[in-house]
């Protein structure tokens, strides 16, 4: 049972939501019976039952291998926009005011002309400056390390946008006229950013739209998973290859790590 679940989340194979939920509950129960409580928590969080809160035993993170990230490829960005319902910037009437949860960043060394490609989005810091500065506490870090905006208490002051070193956040500048996805509420006057597809994570998908798209396109530049689980694919990869944090000088302990920068 346990291995089955592990396999399904690793391969990101589409299984029906009901089946997945059944498996995760069953898996958690089995694990709870068989293994020590601490270990069980980890297992629960991978395919958490819907009445359980996100657990700090898990820390979601992403590995970006910029050496595999293809020039001109925009699959991750399109997938994010589709999954989360934000209009791609190319279609926006107001490109400078259009929200972008994720974008492809092209880097060039002016001396050597070496070029690097990578997606840039919320880095899901362990010590997020946006959470520090938010006056109402609307910008917050969930127990499992995902940094989110609570739109019920966001007043649109944009101080988090001033504070974020990664330009990860956008303000919704105009009325969305009911074009939102039922799973992804977002609205005028509030700030938003990458959520690590929290709706998918909570559903037990164990992956994000951008990772799925990158894998489907055959690039495999993105890996998503639990940084606290030494056996997760991402943890294993991070042990193998050298990675860096963007603006590591700020010491924010990022959830997104880059290889090849």
């Amino acid at each position, binding site marked *: 049972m346990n291995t089955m679940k592990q396999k399904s989340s690793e391969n990101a194979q589409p299984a029906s939501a009901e089946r997945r939920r059944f498996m995760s509950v069953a898996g958690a129960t089995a694990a709870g019976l068989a293994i020590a409580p601490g270990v069980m928590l980890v297992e629960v969080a991978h395919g958490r039952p819907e009445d359980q809160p*996100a657990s700090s035993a898990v820390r979601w993170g992403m590995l970006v291998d910029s050496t595999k990230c293809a020039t001109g490829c925009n699959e991750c960005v399109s997938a994010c926009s589709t999954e989360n319902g934000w209009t791609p910037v190319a279609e926006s009437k107001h490109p400078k005011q259009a929200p972008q949860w994720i974008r492809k960043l092209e880097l060039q060394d002016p001396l050597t002309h070496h070029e690097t490609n990578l997606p840039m989005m919320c880095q899901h810091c362990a010590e997020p400056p946006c959470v520090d500065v938010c006056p109402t506490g609307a910008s917050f870090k969930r127990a499992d390390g995902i940094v989110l905006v609570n739109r019920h208490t966001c007043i649109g002051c944009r101080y988090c946008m001033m504070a974020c070193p990664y330009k990860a956040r956008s303000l919704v500048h105009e009325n969305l006229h009911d074009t939102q996805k039922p799973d992804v509420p977002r609205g005028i006057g509030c700030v938003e950013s990458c959520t690590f597809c929290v709706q998918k994570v909570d559903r037990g998908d164990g992956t994000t739209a951008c990772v799925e798209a990158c894998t489907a396109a055959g690039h495999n530049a993105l890996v998503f998973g639990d940084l606290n689980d030494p056996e997760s694919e991402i943890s294993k990869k991070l042990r193998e290859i050298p990675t860096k944090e963007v603006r590591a000088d700020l010491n924010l302990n990022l959830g997104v790590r880059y290889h090849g920068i």
Partner: protein
Amino acid sequence: MKRLVALGAVILTAAALAWAGADAPARTGGAPKPVIVKAVKGERCVESNEFMRRNHMKVLNHQRDETVIEGIRTKKFSLKQCIECHASEKTGSVAASKDDFCVSCHSYAAVKIDCFDCHSTKPQGSMAMHPLNAESAHYAHKLAATAGSKISAEEMAKVAR
């Protein structure tokens, strides 16, 4: 001078009242009663009608904080689930026209809600019903992407749902 100011105030008030009056419907029996259509899906609500009428805002508020902050996604009092059953057959929405479930009562009670500034008013899977969504490029893109890749029919069904 003071008289002039006072006169101005009176004129403005009168004009405002006249303007407000012009909008109101013919006053035969007060405001029109809300239209409460039986939910399209489901046999009965998660609690009694009596309870929901008085407490829906409390349970929704409680649930929203649990869901957003802690990630608890139980269905019983989730707004998404409300919409799932109560979206009208005509508009596919709980708040698109004045007779839709949420709007109808809330305009009668004159209680302004901002839920739908951010939340979709339609159940999941109704994307195609909305002209803006159906024609939107993200949907087209997703279809194109799924057609061109190895993603299974099951996955497509999930996206559509």
